[in-house]
């Protein structure tokens, strides 16, 4: 417990130092349209609070939708990959290709197919989230030790039993590794989508849309606020999944014993 307090305290000190460096930039005379100080940005947050929250909400909605869909579809694909080796060999390279294709290049395409709006934004998040889920879950499903399989065979377990009682639980920590990676990038995907799809609702837009808008209007202080909000959102997504993972697995999984690494 004491260790955790120390950890939190140190993080706060680091935050203070960072803010100080930032503010000293302003004191040194960098013009506010290039570098607005923390106080100015804070002011922008307060003044534009309702629209900032609205943007955050729209982006999280799309990111969560994309992430959720990628988990469902990714696990289904991983199950197929684990079941049929030939399918895995045939298609696995393409899931890696999906990961290396720049999402910025895909987003306009998605837009052309799915039109302006939430669907397009969530789709871009979905595409960027999918590969880590597939790769990690497949790995978890197929990396079961031979002796465990023999144990199940000795009890004449059916393939369904092997899947439910052995492969799936064994893959769970792997799946969560995938989800953790995807959670962070789902926000990036959604914002990228919004840069192109603009508003996901008529007359308003998520963080990506607002970022474009603020930079167009040279509202640098609000732009800063949006960027900070975007990172905070990614952070929240990451920690939410980490907490879920800890909650579900800490009883039995070694890696979940301690929440802060030594």
């Amino acid at each position, binding site marked *: 417990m004491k260790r955790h307090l120390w950890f939190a305290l140190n993080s706060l000190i680091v935050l203070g130092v960072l803010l100080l460096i930032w503010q000293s930039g302003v004191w040194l005379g960098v013009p506010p349209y290039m570098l607005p100080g923390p106080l100015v940005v804070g002011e922008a947050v307060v003044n534009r609070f309702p629209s900032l929250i609205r943007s955050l909400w729209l982006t999280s909605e799309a990111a969560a939708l994309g992430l959720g869909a990628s988990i469902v579809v990714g696990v289904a694909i991983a199950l197929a990959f684990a079941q049929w080796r030939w399918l895995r060999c045939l298609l696995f390279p393409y899931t890696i290709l999906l990961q290396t294709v720049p999402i910025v290049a895909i987003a306009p395409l998605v837009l052309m197919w799915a039109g302006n709006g939430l669907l397009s934004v969530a789709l871009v998040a979905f595409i960027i989230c999918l590969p880590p889920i597939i790769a990690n879950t497949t790995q978890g499903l197929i990396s079961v*030790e031979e*002796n*465990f399989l*023999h*144990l*199940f*065979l*000795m*009890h*004449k*377990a059916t393939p369904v*039993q092997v899947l439910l*009682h*052995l492969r799936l*639980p*064994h893959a*769970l920590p792997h799946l969560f590794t995938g989800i953790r990676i995807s959670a962070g990038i789902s926000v990036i995907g959604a914002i990228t989508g919004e840069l192109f799809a603009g508003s996901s609702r008529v007359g308003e837009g998520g963080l990506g849309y607002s970022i474009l808008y603020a930079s167009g209007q040279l509202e640098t202080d609000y732009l800063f606020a949006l960027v900070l909000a975007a990172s905070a959102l990614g952070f929240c997504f990451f920690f939410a999944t980490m907490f879920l993972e800890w909650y579900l697995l800490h*009883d*039995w*999984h*070694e890696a979940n014993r301690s929440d802060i690494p030594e």
Partner: protein
Amino acid sequence: MVTTPEIAIDQVSKQFRGGSLALDNVSLTVEKGEFVSLLGPSGCGKSTLLRLVSGLTPATQGTITVNGIEPANARELMSFIFQDATLLPWRTVEQNVGLGLELEGVARPVLEKSVNAMLSLVGLENLAQRYPRHLSGGMKMRVSIARALVSRPRILLLDEPFAALDEMSRDRLNEELLRLYAEQHWTVLFVTHSVAEAVFLSSRIVVLAPHPGRVAHVVPIDLPWPRTADTRLSDAFDEQVTHVSRLLRSVQAAAPEAR
């Protein structure tokens, strides 16, 4: 009247695809209630032989019968205990012990009763709700044994079950295994690298030679039963250990390539 031997291995060879000959013309008969240990240098095919008997892999040549029928059809008579305890980490001790019964579709109340009885038999009542990661190596192995015994097997196949344990835990578990053996009268095939362990446990020791794996010596162990911790202190025990160690060394020396 001719009784069917519990395990009959008749001129069995096993060649892995692309690999060398793991077992060459092995014959071995194990009668009901015998405790037979397999000793031999690494790579002489001990694990392979156990897998053939359990029906997990087919023989390339020869026939194996368990209780007179094909091994794959006699699986409900056998339990396999592996070197690492192979406990499912997401299941508690209790749930691990009940795994086999659960897979076989045994009704809940019956399952719980058998599991509880087995846990108290091996002294694990207090750990029933624990997860494997909280257990020591010896405790894990105890759970593994409980899991193997809960389905009331007639035949036990053990592949170096205590190899990873310290000597004291190993001796304790050896004694406990014999106590259970005296109560439940299984037929046992036991693979080990420890001569002392083999002598202590077995009614018969089979020494295998490597490259290719084959039976080199069969040594009956006529130490009196029941065997206890005191058995290890007797001269007769020492003599047997020395004798078997010599045989093992001759087998190792004769091997074309020692690893």
